[in-house]
């Protein structure tokens, strides 16, 4: 199955915070929620850790390496510095335009 997002695609991380409602195991750090980034590449499909953590069947999801600029995230930092984060497909939405 080919990745939904190609290298270079602009994506938005979902702005949800479901862990404030119930105990979950999430591997999407809070600091990228709601942020836009660029897909560097698809890293392959892996069983969803959110399911593995609860010892229930874990469907495979595509994992992406997504690049973010530092300054918009923290309102500080050196211009040009970046963050590179592994994010699963179900946390990413395409950005139009």
């Amino acid at each position: 199955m080919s990745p939904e997002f190609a290298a270079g695609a602009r994506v938005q991380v979902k702005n949800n915070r479901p862990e404030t409602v119930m105990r979950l195991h999430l591997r999407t750090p809070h600091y990228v929620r709601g942020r836009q980034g660029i897909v560097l590449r698809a890293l392959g499909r892996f069983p969803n850790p959110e399911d593995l953590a609860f010892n229930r069947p874990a469907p495979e999801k595509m994992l992406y390496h997504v690049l973010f600029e530092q300054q918009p995230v923290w309102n500080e930092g050196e211009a040009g510095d970046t963050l590179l984060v592994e994010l699963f497909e179900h946390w990413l939405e395409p950005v139009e335009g």
Partner: protein
Amino acid sequence: MAAREPSAAHVALLEKLIGALTSKGILTEAEIAAKKSATEKASPETGARMVARAWTNPEFRTRLLADGTAAAEEFGISLAGNPPLGVLEDTPALHHLVVCTLCSCYPRVVLGFPPHWYKSTAYRARAVRDPRGVLAEWGTMIPAGTQIRVVDSTADYRWMVLPVQPEGTEGWSEDQLAALLGAEELVGVALPKVAKAQAA
């Protein structure tokens, strides 16, 4: 400095747990001892040798960057049952720094146990937000024109840095080059340095 000793309650918990598992026939003390001794053999020397080979052998460098797991196999290191290894290529314009903000993910098979500082709250909190400040604590200054890319190990990969080969080491053997590299250089908090004595 020795690692903090466990409390008596935790020592007791460990022994009760192992006792229960052994009496149920689930595992044996021998298996634990064998695993302990195998794990102790892993060290940053493996990662260092891989980088040293990449510096001297362009075809290996290409293979290492394309598939770290397969490259480790060339050194007789199998990652079977372990997470895949990714290798991050530094250039004069790009410096990588590896962290796991959510826990302590680390490429143990090629670097050994993660250092105490890598697992610390301060490193996990600060590396993504103030990488230049964190590096400065190691005396590592990255020029403003060089991008620092902080790589947060949030999922299935484990990451190691392929640093830029330091000036003055052209023609060095793999062993000499590997000696310049430890966990600090392979995580990106330090740059490989040629000591004055070596440069002579």
